[in-house]
C-alpha cells in the first residue's frame, strides 16, 4: 500500500532545512505522497528510509519494456480495475506462436503473416506485436533453427522464447541478447537456471506457476536471485480460470500492493477453433492481460481484436474524435446532399450509419468540436454559425457539389438564419433532431 504523507514524514529528517525546495519536511512529505516530488531532493534522508519509500512508491504493476526500438512494447503501469475510473495504460500485446516442429517454409509463412499484419484504424497503426517461439520438439537443435530463422527474417520483432529446458532456452536467447526478449518457462524445477540465463542475457523472465500461491513464491525467488523484470502466468488456460486469476492478480497488485504479483500477465489463448480463440482473447483484452499468445492470426480475427483493444484502452475522460473533413458516404455525385455534424466519434458513427441506412449517397461534413456531441458543442460555442460557415468555405466543398444546400441537425435549427447570413448564396435546411430520422428525411428529398 502506498504510504500516506504522515507516514512518509516520519521517515524524513524533520529538520525543515528547505534544501529540497519545500518550506517544511511535512510539506515535502505531502508532495511525495502525491508522487509530485522525488525523494532524491532530500540530501539528508537515510538509506533505509529511501529504500522503504522507494518500495512504497513503486507502481503497483511494474513497468517493463519488451523488445527494443520502434517495435518495443510497454507493459505494466496499470492503476485501476475498471476503465471508467481511469484509462487503462498500456494496451496488451498480441503474439503469434511459432512451433519448432514446423517446416522451415511454414515458419517463414508465419513470420510473413506477422510482418504483414499491420492495419490502420481511426488513425492508429495496429499490428501483431510479437512472436512466441515454442520448443514443442523438446530438441535443442530444432529450437535453434527456429530462433535463427526468426532472427534472420524478422530481426526487430520482439520475441518470447518458450521452453522449459535451460539449454534449449539459452541457445535461443543468445541470439536475441541485446533485444530485450522474454525468456518464458521458469517453474519450480528450473527457476534457478532460468534466473541465471535471464540475468546473463538481460532478458525479461516469464514465470509459470500452477496456481497463484506457487506463482507468488516463484516471483519472490527469482527476484531474490536478481531478476527484476518478470511477466507472470498462473497456469490458467480455461476461460473461467483466466478471468479469476487475472482479476486476483490485478486486485492483489493494486488494492493490496502485493508485490509478488505486481507484474504484467501473459495469457496463452491458443485453441483449436480460431473463433473461440478470438473470444478467449477478448477476455484477456478486457480483463488485464498484458500479452496474449495466439495460434493463428487471420486478418478478420486481427481486425476484430485490434478494434476491441483500441476500444477498451481508449481514455474514457477524452471523447474519441474523428478527423475534421468532408466524408463521402456511398458514392455521392455533384448533386448529392451535404450534411454537417460534429466530430464526437459516437455522433459520427451514428449519423454516418443512418445515412448509410438511407441508401442515399451523401457528403457528411464533420467539424472539429473537440469531441463534443451536437447539443453540447453548440452550448459550448464549438458548433456556431461562424465556425460552420468558415468550415464550409475552408473545405472548398463548393468545388465538389453544384448545389448550395446545407443540412444541419434539428437540434441547432436556431442557427439556420445566422449561417445563411454568413454563407452567401447558401440555403440552410433543418434536418431531423435525431439521427434515426435521417433515412426518411433523405429519401423524402429525392
Amino acid at each position: 500500500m502506498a504510504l500516506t504523507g504522515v507516514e512518509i514524514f516520519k521517515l524524513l529528517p524533520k529538520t525543515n532545512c528547505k534544501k529540497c525546495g519545500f518550506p517544511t519536511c511535512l510539506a515535502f512529505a505531502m508532495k511525495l505522497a502525491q508522487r509530485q516530488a522525488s525523494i532524491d531532493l532530500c540530501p539528508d534522508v537515510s538509506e533505509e528510509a529511501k529504500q522503504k519509500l522507494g518500495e512504497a512508491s513503486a507502481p503497483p504493476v511494474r513497468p517493463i519494456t519488451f523488445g527494443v526500438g520502434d517495435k518495443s512494447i510497454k507493459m505494466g503501469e496499470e492503476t485501476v480495475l475498471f476503465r471508467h475510473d481511469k484509462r487503462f495504460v498500456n494496451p496488451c500485446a498480441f503474439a503469434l506462436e511459432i512451433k519448432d516442429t514446423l517446416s522451415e517454409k511454414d515458419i517463414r509463412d508465419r513470420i510473413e503473416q506477422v510482418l504483414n499484419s499491420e492495419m490502420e484504424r481511426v488513425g492508429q497503426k495496429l499490428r501483431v506485436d510479437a512472436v512466441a517461439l515454442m520448443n514443442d520438439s523438446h530438441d535443442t537443435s530444432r529450437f535453434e533453427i527456429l530462433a535463427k530463422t526468426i532472427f534472420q527474417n524478422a530481426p526487430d520483432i520482439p520475441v518470447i522464447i518458450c521452453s522449459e529446458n535451460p539449454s534449449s532456452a539459452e541457445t535461443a536467447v543468445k541470439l536475441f541478447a541485446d533485444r530485450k526478449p522474454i525468456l518464458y518457462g521458469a517453474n519450480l524445477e528450473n527457476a534457478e537456471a532460468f534466473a541465471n540465463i535471464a540475468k546473463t542475457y538481460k532478458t525479461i523472465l516469464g514465470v509459470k506457476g500452477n496456481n497463484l500461491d506457487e506463482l507468488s513464491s516463484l516471483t519472490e525467488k527469482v527476484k531474490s536471485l536478481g531478476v527484476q523484470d518478470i511477466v507472470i502466468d498462473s497456469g490458467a488456460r480455461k476461460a473461467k480460470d483466466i478471468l479469476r486469476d487475472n482479476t486476483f492478480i490485478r486486485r492483489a497488485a493494486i488494492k493490496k500492493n502485493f508485490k509478488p504479483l505486481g507484474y504484467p500477465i501473459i495469457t496463452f489463448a491458443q485453441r483449436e477453433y480460431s473463433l473461440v480463440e478470438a473470444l478467449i482473447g477478448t477476455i484477456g483484452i478486457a480483463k488485464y492481460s498484458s500479452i496474449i499468445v495466439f495460434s493463428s492470426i487471420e486478418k478478420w480475427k486481427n481486425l476484430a481484436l485490434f478494434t476491441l483493444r483500441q476500444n477498451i484502452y481508449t481514455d474514457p475522460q477524452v471523447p474519441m474524435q474523428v478527423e475534421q473533413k468532408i466524408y463521402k458516404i456511398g458514392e455521392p455525385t455533384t448533386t448529392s446532399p451535404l450534411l454537417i455534424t460534429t466530430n464526437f466519434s459516437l455522433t459520427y458513427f451514428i449519423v454516418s450509419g443512418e445515412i448509410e441506412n438511407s441508401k442515399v449517397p451523401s457528403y457528411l461534413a464533420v467539424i472539429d468540436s473537440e469531441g463534443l456531441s451536437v447539443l453540447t458543442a453548440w452550448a459550448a460555442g464549438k458548433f456556431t454559425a461562424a465556425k460552420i460557415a468558415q468550415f464550409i468555405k475552408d473545405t472548398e466543398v463548393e468545388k465538389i457539389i453544384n448545389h448550395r444546400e446545407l443540412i444541419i441537425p434539428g437540434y441547432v435549427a436556431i442557427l439556420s438564419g445566422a449561417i445563411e447570413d454568413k454563407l452567401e448564396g447558401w440555403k440552410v435546411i433543418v434536418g431531423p433532431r435525431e439521427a434515426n430520422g435521417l433515412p426518411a428525411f433523405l429519401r423524402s428529398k429525392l
Partner: protein
Amino acid sequence: MAFTPPTESYTGKVCALTIGLGDKAITFGGENVLPFHAFEGSIPNKPVIAFEIQDIPPDDWPEQVRKPYKDVANDPISWAKYCQDTLKAKAIALRLIGTHPDGENRSPEDAAKTVKDVLSAINIPLIILGSNHAEKDASVLISAAEAAKDKNCVIGKAQEANYKTIVAAAMAHNHKLIAMSELDINLSKQLNILIIQMGLERERIIIDPMCSALGYGLEYTYSVMERIRLAALTQNDTTMQPPMLGDVGMYVWKVKETQASETDIPNWGSVEERGITWEAVTATALLLAGADLLIMRHPKAVVAVEKVIEELV
C-alpha cells in the same frame, strides 16, 4: 510472502427474472457478484442468448447473415420454428420492424397477428420488440402485449418518450419489460424509477443501456454496463439491479466491417468470418461487462459465444 486470494463481497444482488412458460421457461440474473466471479459469490443462472427474427423478410440484413435463414425468413412462423427446432434456440426475439412508419407501416393489428402466429408455433420464451419508433411502438406494443397475454413474454423497448403506455401494457398482460435509455447511467436509473413508480415491480424490468457495436462505441456500452452493475452490487442500488440486455445483432450487422467484401478491402480478410467474429466479440465483451440477456443473429456466432459461456461458468 504468502498469497491470500483478494476476494470481495457485495451488498447487492441482481434480480432473477423468468420468462416463458412451463419446462421451456428460462431464468437469468440472480447473481450477487460481478460477471462470472463465481469464486466469490453465487451465480445461479447463466446468461441467455435469444435468436432475432422479424415480421418481414430481412432484406436490410447483410448477405452473410441472411444466408443461414434463406429458406425460412420469408415467414416469421417458419423462421421461429427453425430457430427453435434446428438451431436449438433457448429464446426468440421477434422484432416488429415492419410496423415502422417509414417502412411497411404495418398496423398494430398486423403485429398482433404475427405475435399470435409465432407464439402458437413455438414453446420457448418470446421477446417482442417494436421498430424503435417511439410513437408507433406505443400502439404496436399494446396490441402485441394483448395478443401474448399471460405468455410471460418480454416486451420493449420502453423509452422515456413512450414508457407510460408500454409499462401499462406489460402490467395489464403479465409481461416483462425492457427499459431502454441512451448510454447514460443516470438516464437509465431515472427511467427505472419512473417505471417502478407506475407500479411495475423492478423484478420485471430488463435494463437496456443501449448497445453499440465493436469499433462503433462499444466502450461506452461496456463502461455504462460495468457502472450499472457496480451500482447494483457495491452500492446496493435497488433501481439498478434488474438484469441487463445486449441487443447485439442489430447494431453489429449494420457496420461496415460486417459487410465490406474481401475484394473491396483485402486487408480485412474473409467477410463471412469477419462478420461472425464481429458479432461474437461484441457479445462476449458485453457479457464480461454484465449483460445477462443477448439478442443475436448469426447461428455460428451464437454457438461460439455459448461455448465460451460454458467455459466461464
